[in-house]
């Protein structure tokens, strides 16, 4: 099965400010009682999007101006906490196709790349610039160009970082490793047989 080559993500962006946004915040644990990931998008950031009575708060994700957002901008250490793929899955299923942040927790980063959802890192001054631009004009189109490692918005060209191996696997349509892993069956057997334990 060949995967889509992810070279460029274009869309509306939304700013969800804050550092250390953890996986429990992205999707509270009580919504993880499921045997498939379908429908998880609905509960994305549920506890900050709703008050104690279940009414919608004025969180950016509730703002109809941003209802088509497919790119999320956030702060440092995004996705820290658990290894549960429910967090990137809920973002993906809520329509997000890329995340821009100060940096990412490692497991979250890996899980997101495996879904074909790039996570790119930009320096603080550029994050602030991006945040200003999208808050002032939600209709701004944001383009994440993975071929040239640039974010394009209006006239601005902002450089981003992403682990080179991850970038390559996205642009070459190899972001899901399963087929390559399966193709090395003989070597797998070999390593297994040499181990001191079974």
């Amino acid at each position, binding site marked *: 099965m060949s995967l889509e080559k992810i070279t460029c993500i274009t869309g509306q962006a939304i700013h969800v400010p804050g550092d*250390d946004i953890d996986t429990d915040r992205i999707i*509270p644990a009580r919504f993880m009682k499921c*045997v498939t990931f379908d429908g998880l998008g609905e509960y994305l950031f549920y506890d900050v999007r709703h008050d104690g009575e279940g009414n919608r708060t004025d969180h950016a994700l509730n703002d109809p101006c941003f209802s088509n957002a497919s790119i999320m901008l956030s702060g440092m*250490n995004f996705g820290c906490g658990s290894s549960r793929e429910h967090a990137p899955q809920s973002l993906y299923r809520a329509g997000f196709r890329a995340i821009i942040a100060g940096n990412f*927790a490692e497991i979250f980063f890996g899980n997101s790349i495996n879904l074909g959802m790039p996570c790119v890192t930009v320096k603080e001054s550029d994050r602030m610039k991006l945040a200003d631009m999208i808050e002032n004009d939600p209709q701004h189109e944001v383009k994440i160009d993975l071929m040239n490692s640039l974010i394009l918005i209006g006239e601005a060209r902002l450089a981003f970082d992403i682990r080179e191996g991850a970038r390559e696997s996205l642009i070459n349509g190899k972001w899901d490793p*399963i087929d390559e892993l399966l193709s090395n069956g003989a070597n*797998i057997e070999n390593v297994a047989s040499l181990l001191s334990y079974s």
Partner: protein
Amino acid sequence: MEKLNLFQKVWRNHTVGTLENGQTQLFVGRHLIHEVTSPQAFGMLKEKGLPVRYPERTFATVDHIVPTDEISEPYSDPLADAMIKELRRNCEETGITFFDVSSGMQGIVHVVGPEQGLTQPGMTIACGDSHTSTHGAFGAIAFGVGTSQVRDLLATQTLALSPLKVRRIEVNGSLPPGVYAKDVILHIIRKLGVNGGTGFAYEYAGEVFDNFSMEERMTACNMSIEGGARVGYVNPDTKTFEYLHGRPYCPEGSDWDTAINTWESLASDVGCDYDDIVFLNASEISPTVTWGINPAQAISVEENIPDPSQLFGSEASSATEALEYMKLQAGSPVKGTPIDVAFIGSCTNGRLSDLEEVATRLNGHKVREGVKAIVVPGSQIVSQLAEQKGLDSIFKSAGFEWRRAGCSMCLAMNPDKLLGDQLCASSSNRNFKGRQGSPTGRTMLMSPLMVAAAAISGEIADSREIFPS
């Protein structure tokens, strides 16, 4: 001969090859699964028409969603009921060993693995759960993975991974009385930060770790991920071997002697290279409590709650956010903060030694009126051993509820939840907003004995004052 650290040796032994994107294809010798992160992976496997490649290398248990006050099925929560049945069915269909509730061996996956002797030195161990780092206490390279990777493991027993750097953290000197492994790891996280470990495996060493029991090593390794390190380990030694000897899944007879030789050879070589080394002094560590919403926001019980106006940059803004959420007063002593709930349990501190340490100090003390105090053993075996020693009656007569094994209020995916903005003194590992089941619930992390001190006082207290030795 080239001098290597344990991480490098184990990584080398399990390398299948290099993938096109430069990552390593790594063989994973033990795969542990539970009900929350595996059903979707089995679903993906079915979609692709792939079988489970090495079912004998995967072991399952159920921990997050099990109620701790009822065991009969169907569970009152239909979603939880569906999850346990799905796991049971997946294991039956694929031939994976399942430590089910009826087995007497069920419990939190990170308690069950070591207890059964499934966790051994020199292994690679993965589980769809970030606290898999716990198993590193045995000198294994153990880490949490996402559900797509659980699928990769079921299908190929391998993963696409990039190697980690290794930071040795040496804690030397002796710990003051009343200071536990939990305080040591909270101290390490406070010093190095919640993402200080990104890209690293932590190798814990020094006199403190040498002297720690296996259960104490597990407590520390458990929280590596809270410091951003996906892997945390301690080199195997005689304590490791003594703990494992005679456990169900360990080698026996002459195989045992061979295994010890292999295990010893895997420990980091004297004089090997590290990417970083950090030295910490044990005498500086005190009973520690968290006051904020990440585990690095921790202070000694004798300190005052930090004042954001005295902090800088993102530390100041996150402290402001934390104090607002925690409803705590900047600059006031953390001691004396009233609590509503006390929770002893979790994969950090739900083992027999944790329960014993508290029970032996409880005599004559009573849980303060108005405080809900619960003890949740980490596994059915912990629970059974504790009951044989009469710990359950000690806890009960002091006013604690004695529950059945599971994750319980650590993550509150079962019915054990905080209500409203209740504040919980908790022996678990995460104090994130909403972690214990109520969107406004508040968590303060500490050692089990500090939880007990808080339960008795009705407020955050210094365990050394409540239980003078």
